[in-house]
């Protein structure tokens, strides 16, 4: 038997492991460091300006769709923010929509109803086998751009209008007050329901107090029922709010495309649950809905969540294809217009990559949290 001390250092696994780790870290640092240093050297050698001063310069261009107030006087930094919010908006809505459609299609594909399962199969096979960019062009140029022009709009009760420029609908004249009212109303509704039902056990008390407090809230928030209704003035509809076709096309494209993959993941999840579980649930006297809710879905989710996370990440990154159909997301506005106006290619591309990295890591960490919750919660 050898004592540890007898073994030479280079043959001790711990020491060797540590050495390899350190070597790897040094190597990685060297590669990154050389890359960065080389870029800086090359840029200064070629007389390229560098730095982040351009973010505070005025942008000088218009953005068709912005959730923040926007005009040409705002800075490039704000353009970055506007574009980032647009990317987040379409990704979030796309994820929600893709999940809903995907679950429905996935379950339909497993259905014993021949028509439902065949339609679901056609949906999945035709959508996931056509490139996304092509689908975006179909939605944008093939479907939406075939709507009528401004003067051939479809009108709904003369307050909502649909044409090639988008969907125009009325909007409160005092939007901030309206938002405050709606948010506090939601809190009020659920708070009151919880409180009255618990302490008075009476629905009548709930409704009466709700109406009273709602009136009070309405007065306090200063919201009015005045709506700005869109009408044709000059070239376009003015007034009201507009949902631009670029957003709609990108959202539909992303959601349907990803839904096909989600459907397959859902199907795989359900098929992974042993047939015996259905029989066991049935023998306990659970009906079909109860079986799904308490027995099957919790087990299926364990298989569904990890690949679903990848699809969410894909959808977010695919939203950059919106630049092809003029949706003002971060690649089009920031890595496109701002890049050409300022020429700060390295900084802008690095920032854009950073944005996608952060969004992706955030989604992944949320989904991982949910996954571990499912694992603990689902009776494992």
């Amino acid at each position, binding site marked *: 038997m050898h004592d540890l001390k007898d073994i030479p250092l280079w043959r001790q696994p711990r020491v060797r492991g540590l050495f390899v780790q350190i070597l790897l870290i040094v190597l990685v640092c060297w590669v990154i460091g050389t890359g960065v240093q080389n870029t800086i050297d090359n840029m200064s050698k070629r007389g390229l300006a560098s730095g982040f001063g351009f973010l505070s310069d005025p942008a000088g261009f218009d953005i068709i769709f912005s959730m923040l107030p926007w005009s040409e006087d705002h800075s490039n930094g704000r353009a970055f923010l506007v574009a980032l919010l647009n990317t987040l908006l379409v990704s979030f809505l796309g994820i929600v929509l893709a999940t809903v459609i995907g679950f429905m299609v996935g379950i339909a594909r497993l259905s014993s109803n021949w028509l439902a399962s065949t339609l679901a199969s056609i949906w999945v096979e035709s959508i996931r086998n056509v490139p996304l960019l092509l689908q975006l062009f179909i939605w944008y140029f093939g479907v939406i751009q075939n709507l009528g022009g401004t003067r051939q709009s479809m009108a709904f009760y003369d307050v909502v209008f649909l044409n090639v*420029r988008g969907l125009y609908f009325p909007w409160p004249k005092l939007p901030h007050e309206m938002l405050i009212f709606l948010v506090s109303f939601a809190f009020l509704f659920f708070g009151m329901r919880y409180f009255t039902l618990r302490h008075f056990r009476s629905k009548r008390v709930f409704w009466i107090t709700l109406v009273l407090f709602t009136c009070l809230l309405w007065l306090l928030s200063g919201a009015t029922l005045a709506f700005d209704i869109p009408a044709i003035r000059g070239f376009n509809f003015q007034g009201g709010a507009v949902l631009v076709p670029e957003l709609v096309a990108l959202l539909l494209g992303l959601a349907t495309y990803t839904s096909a993959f989600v459907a397959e993941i859902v199907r795989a999840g359900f098929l992974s649950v042993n047939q015996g579980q259905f029989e066991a649930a049935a023998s306990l006297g659970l009906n079909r809905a109860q079986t799904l809710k308490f027995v099957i879905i919790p087990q299926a989710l364990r298989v569904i969540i990890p690949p679903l996370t990848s699809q969410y990440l894909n959808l977010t990154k695919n939203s950059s294809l919106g630049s092809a159909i003029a949706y003002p997301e971060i690649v089009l506005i920031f890595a496109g217009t701002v890049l050409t106006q300022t020429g700060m290619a390295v900084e802008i591309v690095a920032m854009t990559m950073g944005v996608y990295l952060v969004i992706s890591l955030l989604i992944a960490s949320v989904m991982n949290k949910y996954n571990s919750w499912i694992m603990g919660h689902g009776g494992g």
Partner: protein
Amino acid sequence: MKHLRIKVLVGLLLSSSGFGATIDQVRKKGFIQCGVSQGLPGFSEISGKGKWQGIDVDYCRGLAAAVLGDPAKVKFTPLSAKERFTALQSGEIDVLSRNTTWTLSRDTGLAVSFVGVVYYDGQGFMVRKKSGVTSAKQLDGATICVNTGTTTELNVADYFRANKMKYKMVVFEKSDEVVAAYDAGRCDVYTTDQSGLYANRVKLKKPDSHIVLPEVISKEPLGPVVRQGDDQWADINRWTLYALLEAEELGLTSVNVKKMKSSANPAVLRFLGVEKDMGKQMGLSRDWAMKVVKSVGNYGEIFERNLGAKTTLKISRGQNALWRDGGLHYAMPVR
């Protein structure tokens, strides 16, 4: 496109030294890598026969004739508006000949040098005839389709602000999508350089029901660009361009240039390298200018071949005529 962008970034990341003289590299590899557009009729596009053609393409062919003695020794890299400068900076191309506007911030901030003007352009507007608009001043509230990565976005913003008019701008990455969206009615107005408006009008479903408004809202001198810091290469480019203009002024064409060697005009003899070697200082052959004219013709021939009355574009010479004919083209004297 994505592939190129990655190559360009990796180039910046990894290449260890600057560049040697461009002319040496060109001679070594045996061809000139020329950056052009992804398809703009009259300027640079692939013809039905699969060959590049256009005024920007002919410039590069002329350059190849001057440097390598053969107009065919040139390879073309189609670039989007936003890739073009990075491709030049990173050494992906040797010269950028892609309807690029010469501006102060580009010339000074991007480590590139403009060598001259191939085409004097200006930004204009196209609208549908049935809209009844006859002047850009009537465009208040209009929706405008535009191509990203160009000076046009800022020009429009400036013009509308100066005239206190409102507008909406729909920005696309490629010009084909801009044209398609305008054609579908997404926008009231399509704006780009006037040459581009005429060129792209041909692609619309009913070209005749669209008009180009008279206003020109910007100066767009389009010309070739080279990397900063290689004066010899910049000189070669500049004088190749001047040689095209000078040839027209002297009445030299691709047809008669060989015969003109026996001309009595000393300017012609100097130009053709008969009396004096005008190429040596640039590192070119004695008869470089003759090779240029012999292979692509003079500026007037290039213009008529690609943009003139016999083409679908039907653009008149206008400010692109020689100075003695009332235009803006003025070659510095070759002597």
